[in-house]
């Protein structure tokens, strides 16, 4: 089975998810089944209801959240009980999202999960501020 049916739902603070989607589409072109939800101004119950409506039971999807331990992460953690076919991916960044969009129709879910995690982590580098060396 490939991941062609995998829907991506970004659940984030503020406009972070929407901007990540917009930026990814600027790089890759328009994308189907990619949705951004924000917690701004919503109670946990209201955001849960919106998310539940976007995620029919049995549908394979990835819930991308910005912050594990934040309200979006908590809501998605709780929703996973009702939607065991969903994968929760925390710490979403642009490399992770691009990896998902490029590979979701090409690899199986297990490989897709591994790719998301490794790409998101491998993309992080801190360059500079090396200890000074004196001749």
């Amino acid at each position, binding site marked *: 089975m490939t991941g062609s049916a995998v829907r991506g739902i970004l659940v984030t*603070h503020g406009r972070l998810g929407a901007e990540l989607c917009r930026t990814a589409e600027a790089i890759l072109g328009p994308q189907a089944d990619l949705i951004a939800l924000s917690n701004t101004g919503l*109670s946990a119950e209201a955001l849960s209801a919106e998310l539940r409506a976007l995620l029919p039971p049995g549908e394979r999807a990835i819930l991308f959240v910005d912050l594990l331990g934040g309200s979006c992460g908590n809501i998605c953690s709780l929703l996973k009980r009702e939607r065991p076919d969903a994968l929760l991916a925390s710490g979403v960044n642009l490399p992770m999202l691009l990896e998902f969009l490029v590979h979701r129709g090409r690899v199986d879910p297990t490989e897709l999960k591994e790719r998301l995690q490794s790409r998101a982590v491998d993309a992080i580098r801190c360059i500079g501020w090396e200890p000074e060396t004196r001749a």
Partner: protein
Amino acid sequence: MKFLLVRVDDRLLHGQVVYGWGGPLRPRRYLIVDDRAASDAWEREAYTASAVGAPVEVLDLERFAQGWRGTPDAAGTLVLLRDLAGLHRLWVSGFRPEGGVNLGGIHARAGTRPRLSFIHLTEEEERTLGVLLAAGCDLHAQELPGTPRHDVETIRTWVREA
């Protein structure tokens, strides 16, 4: 007894609490006092597994009401309540935190009116606030340490006659 912070927030433990308040206050423990979270193993696990910087414990309202005076390391404990109804239950049972109670997040739902960007109240909640204020509960509204603090006089203007 003085807790590090007692906060009413319908999102309980989340980014604003862990990073916004947790950064400057440096809690040694987060204590979620909530019947739903306490009775639901999945929800408890979601909170405790995602703890950042300090451990998370979850108690139901009754257990906290009975034992709050004996809370270990209260000065390092950040207490989180989900709603005003829970605060009222604790108040009726004798809960009297020194330093008052922070209203930090009561968000929009059906039947609410906005009072601040982060405080939306039903008529019932406005009445509950009135009862709490009349009983001497020290309340303020503040979303984050660096945002304006709205004192008890502001909250009095929201109160609906019981």
